[in-house]
């Protein structure tokens, strides 16, 4: 049974189809949640919340391909994570004055494996990590991020800059001298 049929069956309340969809996307979505929320327990809880919303709202979803379904599900998970973080009020500590614009050595990241990149991102503090995830990975602009996180655009920029600095430090700490390699 393909994804389209699964979605159709799940819309009619088929538990088996819901289970298949859950099995298909659960681990990927858990990784998305863990990129935003460090604690595995919290991430798992948010995953369940996200899937609960997904199955209760699936009747309003029009299937337009696997990618659209994945994007919709990912968006639900991200929203759940942001709601969780907003509730914790993690974005108020950062001030705009410390904002710096530094280039991110993305080539360095390209040479890393997916697991290494994931582990680096997870090491970032929650504020940096959230903005980095939204800007660098989800492709949102600072205006959208500011609106979503209920912060100013400047704060979003500063968070991203700090995230890049910290990420480079982490790369250096991990003894991965990509910058040096590039200069050679």
């Amino acid at each position, binding site marked *: 049974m393909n994804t389209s049929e699964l979605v159709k069956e799940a819309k009619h309340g088929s538990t088996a189809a*819901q289970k298949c969809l859950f*099995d298909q996307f659960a681990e990927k979505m858990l990784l998305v949640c863990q990129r935003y929320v460090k604690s595995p327990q919290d991430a798992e809880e948010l995953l*369940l919340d996200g899937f609960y919303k997904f199955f209760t709202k699936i009747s309003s979803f029009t299937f337009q391909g696997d990618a659209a379904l994945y994007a919709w599900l990912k968006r639900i998970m991200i929203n759940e994570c942001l709601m969780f973080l907003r509730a914790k009020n993690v974005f108020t500590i950062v001030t705009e004055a410390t904002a710096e614009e530094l*280039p991110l050595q993305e080539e360095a990241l390209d040479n890393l494996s*997916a697991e290494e990149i*994931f582990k680096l991102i997870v090491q970032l503090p929650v504020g940096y990590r959230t903005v980095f995830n939204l800007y660098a990975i989800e492709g949102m602009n600072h205006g959208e991020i500011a609106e979503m996180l209920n912060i100013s655009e400047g704060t979003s920029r500063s968070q991203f800059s700090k995230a890049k600095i910290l990420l480079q430090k982490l790369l250096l700490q991990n003894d991965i001298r990509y910058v040096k390699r590039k200069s050679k």
Partner: protein
Amino acid sequence: MSNENPNNTPGWRNKLDEFEHLPGSSFNNDAAWDKLYGRLRGNKRNRKIFWYWIAAACLFFGLVITFLNYQKDNSETGNKETALKQQPKEINKPILKGEKPDKNENENRVELVKNKIVSTPNKPTERKLHIVQTEVTTKARHDDILTTDQAPEPLAKPLQIINTNSTATVIPQKKKLNVVHINELGDPVIESSDITRIEDIHSFKLKFGNGEVFSSSPVASKSSGLIILKTKPASN
């Protein structure tokens, strides 16, 4: 490389998107599904419970409305009854000749009385006894007497206790006496085939020593040949 342009997707982003499983993760897919399924089922159950509550509320309101209507009817009945009690003179006013009692009013009163009897079936009251003792000329009068609470007048004769459950609801009717042919002396004459009336002799007048006068109607018996004379006190 531009940091402000997130639309050009570098390789590391694609890598991250394709990353499906974190090694060493303790995530249990089935356990997570059980939790989620419990929530989803709970949601369905909650919906069912919600509809049950709605149904129960409707039933409750229906019962309440029925009960209130019933009470309202009762109170209206009580009001009518008290109104009747407050106007005893009018109720006991004798019906004059030619005066027609209001039929509707009387019917209402009969219903009131019936209701009252139904509500207290085990209490034979004195009021009901008056029905027996009082001469009821019309239906209206009878009902009026039933509904009044006035103390009964002392009666000369001892009251006859009657089972009011059956008698109070029955409206006494005027008894029509059967038309019976009787002879002048009061006893019915059984005219058998062997008795023939003597048409020529209509009556005799007898006078005894004490001066009383009797008349008789002669009847002849065919078998015995006797003439039967029956007597009665003659009217002056």
